[in-house]
């Protein structure tokens, strides 16, 4: 295992130390509890947005903490959901009187830990908590016979858009409704060229031959829908875009917001090339691109590969997308 780390058990704690050092004015990090807060939390009268999940997906979620996006992010061990104590502490700390919204990616661990946190928070008087589960991954078919669709790329778009709504002063109910509407209208599909290596495991999670790709992979190096022979970018783009379009209920009034996301180990030159293929396919399908984002936003350690997320766009969503955001991972207008 070749990584820029010290002890594999210290990776998350030490990365948070570096993150705190890199963003002293913007973030406040509780190293004990492993929670990344925006420096000025809690904001009075604003709905608090709390997300979190296993680490190894950076910049998600800690890198999306800041004005216009999240108020707090709970960092679990690598690929392991954080624990209810963290979510409760974060919920308390960002409550500005308007309630707190939990944004949860649909993984058994995340859902159960956030569920316990919400139960425990409800027992404590005071904070109103709502929770939205994100499940956009069309690679998981039969969701009746599985843990359901995973939460993947849509998480980034959702945290941005709901973050802007919360910043505007919208109510908890409004923010939760918006988040649920986005979940209904967003779909993703990913693929991997290589596996990733969990530091504590020390070996790649799966083996992939030199001429194979894993199609429908998640963001934890979970094996995907199927193995396929390595193919040119234009064919890979079709393997991702087609199932997403097939599952999406058409484009929105304003087309779609597109995320072409890198898994961590794929360089930007390849991501741009892939985005060219995706844009061509969408154009061919008559789908208008309202906004796009290309880069490493929800990653899987050093895995090489990418994912495509489409979100039906309308005027309000585009407006909220364009609203100022100031986080380490996503910044504009501020």
């Amino acid at each position, binding site marked *: 295992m070749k990584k820029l780390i010290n002890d594999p058990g210290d990776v998350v704690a030490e990365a948070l130390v570096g993150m705190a050092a890199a963003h002293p004015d913007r973030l406040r990090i509780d190293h004990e509890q492993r929670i990344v807060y925006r420096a000025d939390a809690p904001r009075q009268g604003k709905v608090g947005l709390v997300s979190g999940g296993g680490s190894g997906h950076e910049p998600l979620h800690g890198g999306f903490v800041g004005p216009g996006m999240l108020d707090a992010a709970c960092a*679990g061990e690598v690929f392991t*959901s954080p624990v209810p104590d963290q979510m409760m502490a974060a919920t308390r700390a960002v409550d500005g009187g308007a309630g707190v919204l939990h944004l949860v990616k649909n993984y058994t661990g995340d859902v*159960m830990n956030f569920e316990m946190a919400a139960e425990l928070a409800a027992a404590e008087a005071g904070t109103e908590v709502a929770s939205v589960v994100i499940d956009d991954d069309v*690679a998981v078919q039969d969701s009746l016979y*599985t*843990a359901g669709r995973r939460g993947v790329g849509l998480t980034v778009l959702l945290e941005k858009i709901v973050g802007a709504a919360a910043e505007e002063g919208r109510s908890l109910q409004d923010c939760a409704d918006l988040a649920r509407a986005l979940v209904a209208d967003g779909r993703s599909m990913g693929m991997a060229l290589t596996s990733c290596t969990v530091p504590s*495991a020390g070996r790649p999670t799966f083996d992939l031959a030199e001429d194979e790709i894993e199609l429908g992979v998640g963001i*934890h190096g979970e094996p995907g829908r199927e193995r396929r022979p390595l193919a040119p970018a234009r064919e890979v783009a079709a393997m991702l875009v087609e199932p997403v379009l097939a599952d999406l209920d058409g484009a929105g009034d304003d087309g779609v917001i597109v995320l072409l996301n890198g898994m961590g180990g794929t360089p930007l030159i390849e991501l741009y090339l892939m985005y060219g293929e995706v844009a061509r396919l969408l154009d061919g399908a008559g789908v208008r691109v309202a906004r796009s984002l290309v880069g490493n936003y929800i990653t899987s350690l050093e895995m090489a590969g990418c994912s495509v997320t489409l979100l039906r766009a309308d005027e309000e969503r585009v407006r909220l997308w364009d609203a100022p955001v100031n986080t380490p991972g996503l910044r504009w207008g501020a």
Partner: protein
Amino acid sequence: MATVENFTAWVHDFARTIAEHSEQLTDLDRAIGDGDHGSNMTRGTARCAQLTDEQTFTGPGDYLKKVGMTLVSTVGGASGPLYGTFFLRMATSLTEVDDVGPEQLGTALEAGVEGILTRGRAERGDATMYDALAPALESYRQAVADGADLAGALAAAAKAAAEGRDATTDMVARKGRASYLGDRSRGHLDPGAASATLLLESAARTLA
């Protein structure tokens, strides 16, 4: 009759066994999940094993509650809330009991397994830890009904857990991360069923 000393011995033995099997559990999880079950369980049980250094406990219920809370607070992932809930429910069932007999332990185990069911909504055959725990509980009950003492009942439970664990190999996972694999999960032993079997084997070594 199992006392608080037996229960602390159980948790300590479990922590030791998990640490020994950590890599193996992670390997099982790498094959059909995300390769962290060993480190998750090791982190949590190691923390539990420190509890007796830090405070004294008034009885099995008091101790197991702390163990459950510690697991919830340290393990994370799917196994944290599941094992945590297991111990918390056992604890509730054993409140104010000092010496735990075969019947009482059966009721407590059942409460624990019910807790896992409530939390995870798994069914038999979904290839989870429940597929080790459910047959273990049944065999335990049967042995007690047949007149077995604690040692005998726990031995039967551990044996049934191991059989249930091995049976997960032929199942298609329908819960947790492994479920994303669909048919490709067949042929793999479920990591949670493996750790649950270690839990019952530890019990057989320590509670009687």
